[in-house]
């Protein structure tokens, strides 16, 4: 597991390297490429019994564009990432360490990015999914993201990361290797 910088010092992403592969894409790019793949979206819609397949595909492509625009805006204007990410658990206190977060551009957004909040305005993307049910547990796509969040959190804790400063220390050591 490796953590790469998307734009410093605020947004990072995990890279899940497959065995035998030299290096994989970071989660943001991997997911964005998937969410812009017409064949993937169409097959997903059909497999999930969506009624209006063409509309579903078009909606997800539009959702992907909205995320791209928001990310671009956040980078260029230093708009806080909290405009996009919220706590996964609504009942969570604001000060929870390494909080699990979900990203959505609006109520209508059918796509989700998941991340660990390391500190104020510092997030590590752990994965993402097409949102098909109200609760994450109720659909295999979103359900598969929960263990990824857990693993990432455990990984960070294991490496002494609990806030921004300890994250930078860990990241510098990782990059030095």
């Amino acid at each position: 597991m490796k953590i790469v910088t998307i734009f410093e010092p605020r947004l990072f992403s995990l890279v899940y390297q497959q065995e035998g592969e030299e290096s994989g894409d970071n989660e943001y790019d991997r997911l964005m490429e998937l969410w812009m793949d017409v064949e993937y979206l169409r097959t997903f819609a059909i497999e999930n019994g969506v009624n209006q397949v063409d509309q579903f595909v078009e909606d997800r492509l539009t959702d992907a564009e909205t995320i791209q625009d928001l990310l671009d805006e956040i980078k260029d204007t230093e708009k806080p990432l909290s405009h996009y990410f919220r706590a996964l658990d609504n009942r969570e206190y604001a000060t929870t360490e390494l909080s699990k977060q979900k990203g959505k551009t609006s109520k209508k957004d059918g796509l989700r990015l998941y991340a660990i909040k390391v500190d104020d305005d510092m997030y590590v993307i752990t994965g993402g999914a097409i949102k098909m049910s109200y609760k994450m547990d109720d659909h295999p796509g979103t359900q598969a993201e929960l263990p990824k969040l857990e693993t990432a959190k455990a990984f960070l804790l294991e490496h002494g990361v609990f806030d921004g400063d300890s994250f930078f220390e860990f990241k510098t050591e990782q990059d030095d290797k």
Partner: protein
Amino acid sequence: MATRFLSLKQNKMTNKDKFLALVSNEVTDTAARNKERIKNRKRLRESQGIALKVLNRLDELGWTQKRLADELQVSPQQVSKIVKGKENLTLETQVKLQELLDIPILASYYEKNINRLAEQFVVTIKAKTIVQKTVHVAKDTSTITAKGKVVSLKLASTSEKAPRYTQYDVAS
């Protein structure tokens, strides 16, 4: 005591500063790729639209992507790229797809086929029953006989989803 706290604070700055100093070594090109996607958006949307039409038509015809590759005389990898909706297709490929699959990709599809599209029409007459008639359409206005009454029609729209059917509104 104050000195110790000062050096702790210096350590805090050092970690982030150290990181920022090294960051250029491993920053992803994600931001640049993101900008590229935004820049190519109009073209990508066209590619995506074509991909969807191709996939729907392959299903209708019962063709595999391999069959399409053979018919187009391209590699299966090329077809795979086309249906992902990210390829910047050449005009040649667009014409080949349009002719082979009979799907609207270019303006020429409608311009050439305005006569050929006169196969079967659903005519909606206001407050009357729906009449199905086979008509020939020379231009965008024509007349048909419905329930013994001659009515004139104007071409209202051609649906992209069902290009063989054209909905007509009664002109008067």
